[in-house]
């Protein structure tokens, strides 16, 4: 072992030690700015989730409303043009009886009002 020199055989790239302090300080600054508290991270994540939730639900309602409005316009067009008759529309419905009941109730409701006037004799 005495015959083996103990000199340093490990060399560095040129200018390495001149730049190293800057590199270390910059890296330290970078780590400090990236460091967020767990609470801040959680709050940010929650805000993002809530924001996305509202965005999605709002857009869904808007989309549904616009589709519904377009459908109603189309249906009116088909009816007014005579392309669809009343019987055609009833067959499209899943529950045509319900539609008829609603129509009857609406019509007879008017008729009952009129009937009361007849009974009181006011019409003649």
């Amino acid at each position, binding site marked *: *072992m005495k*015959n*083996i*020199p*103990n*000199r*340093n*055989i*490990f*060399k*560095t*790239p040129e200018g*390495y*030690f001149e730049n*190293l*302090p800057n*590199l*270390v*300080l910059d*890296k*330290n600054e970078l*780590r400090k700015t990236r460091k967020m508290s767990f609470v801040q991270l959680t709050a940010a994540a929650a805000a993002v989730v809530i924001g996305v939730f509202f965005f999605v639900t709002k857009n869904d309602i808007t989309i549904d409303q616009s589709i519904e409005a377009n459908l109603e316009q189309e249906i009116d067009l088909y009816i007014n043009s005579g392309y669809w008759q009343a019987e055609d529309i009833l067959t499209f419905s899943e529950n045509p009886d319900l539609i008829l009941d609603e129509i009857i109730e609406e019509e007879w409701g008017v008729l009952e009002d009129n009937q009361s006037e007849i009974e009181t004799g006011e019409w003649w």
Partner: protein
Amino acid sequence: MISISELELLELIRNPRSRERGFRLLVEMYQKRVYGIIRKMLIFHEDADDVTQNTFIKAFRNLENFQGNSSLFTWLYRIATNESLNFLEKKKRRFFFPIEDHVEAMSGYLDQSGLITGDEIEIRLQKALLKLPDKQRLVFNMRYFDDLSYEQISQITQTSVGALKASYHHAVKKIENELHTD
């Protein structure tokens, strides 16, 4: 005991207005020695560069905990050696490569890199050192190359002087056998 210059340095760092200047001075004062001990362990300059930077950053973050029981240099050296040993341990824990691979890579670097300037016997010594356990190699490096006293090495490694002497002499025997075998 802390030297006066180290005390002044600590004052600079503890004062928020001069903190950055203190950090810069800390790096400038100790970078070559810190890098040196790390490089001897890790062999690759790129690895040593990473670990050196991390050592100083760790020192910055933990200077508030430095109680002055040892010199600032010893404290820094301790961080550097721990970081180096942890780094080597992580390299060897890669499940897809056998343990010899990283040692072989370091040995190959000694032969091929332009950042190694040793003659034949110096390269052979380094390769023989790579066959020692990491902690034994560390002790050898600090004693043989850095010329640290056993007391200093004891403070750095938190190992008794007796154990260190035994480790060093055992390392010398192994290296001599290895070099004579080659």
